[in-house]
């Protein structure tokens, strides 16, 4: 494992190697070398299974972090490969050539985050949302509450509590919700 990571560090300049759990290690890799790295992992290192791929929106850093989760059945461990892509140029190389099922994830990411995967099959079709006409809903700049009220309306009489505040009241009724 260590050897492999060292080799990858040498060849692909991976960074931020973190052992998150037993048998789960994550690291960052540059966008350009990501596909080569994945191919290397699949073909050479036995990480034949793509568990999933997903995305995290770091709007503060102006990046999306794509996460590819790979599993090795022989070594029974998992690698999380993080790739940072810029929010301005939210495009990534499609890996459906490596794992055929990846097109589904990519379609989902396209719909939910607006990340483009040129060449991925059917990537622009609707996935979960049918006829979505707003900015992708999982982007953090999208205000769901506002959208929900505009589109679906709001039934009067509904009361909404801040969970934290509400629970304090629930737990410490005597002190008026005060922690002390």
């Amino acid at each position, binding site marked *: 494992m260590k050897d492999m990571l060292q080799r990858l560090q040498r060849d692909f300049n991976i960074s931020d190697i973190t052992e998150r759990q037993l048998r789960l290690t994550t690291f960052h890799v540059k966008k350009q070398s990501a596909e080569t790295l994945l191919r290397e992992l699949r073909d050479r290192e036995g990480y034949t299974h793509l568990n999933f791929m997903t995305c995290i929106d770091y709007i503060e850093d102006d990046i999306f972090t794509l996460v590819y989760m790979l599993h090795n059945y022989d070594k029974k461990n998992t690698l999380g490969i993080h790739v940072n892509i810029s929010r301005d140029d939210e495009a990534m190389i499609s890996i459906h050539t490596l794992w055929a099922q990846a097109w589904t994830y990519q379609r989902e990411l396209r719909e939910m985050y607006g990340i483009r995967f040129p060449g991925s099959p059917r990537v622009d079709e609707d996935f979960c949302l049918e*006829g979505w006409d707003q900015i992708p809903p999982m982007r953090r700049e999208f205000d769901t509450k506002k959208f929900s009220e505009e589109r679906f309306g709001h039934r009067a009489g509904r009361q909404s509590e801040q969970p934290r505040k509400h629970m304090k009241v629930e737990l410490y009724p005597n002190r008026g919700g005060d922690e002390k």
Partner: protein
Amino acid sequence: MFKKTLNTEDTLKNSGLTDEEQQLFSNARPQAYEPYPIKAVEDFANWARANSLWILAFGTGCGAIELRPLMTARFDANRFGVAGRPTPRQSSVFVIGGYASVKTLKRIIRSYEQMQGPKFVIALGICPVNGGMYFDSYNTVNQFDQYLPVDLYITGCMPRPEVLVAGIMELQKKIKAGECNGANLYVENFDWYKSNQKKVIKNWDMPDYNW
């Protein structure tokens, strides 16, 4: 017997369909039905309807899981004439099992329209009422009765089967009293319901009324 010629006001535009598809779907407007002219017959019919509630086997949300125990030995809804039915044509009760996302709503509308009247809708849980915990979700409708007429709400998150049984008995009472007129309500306010539906369902690629 067959109403073949309908004047233009009676037809729907079906603008969500391509020209080719227009010819494949009926564009007739649904019509309300009157009660039987004889009160006794109507009462008897209502009694029969109340005692033979066939639920459409369409679990629209998390509440669907609560429907399953209804048929088990513990609750045995069969006693009340409740049975599951896999096809909307033969069902008379539609149980909205909790939250309805936009995508599901589309299917709910289709299935509801395919049911034959008299038909009844039970909304399960809090979500159909006001969105419940999904009140700020980008894809869950907050007021279900904007889109389909609801005959009975059973709130809770989720309501247990016992409550469901109670709800069904309540529905039976309402049916026997002749108060469940959801189907006619829907037809009479068809344009309103339809415009509400179209407001949230953006890719309206189906006929205006799914016969």
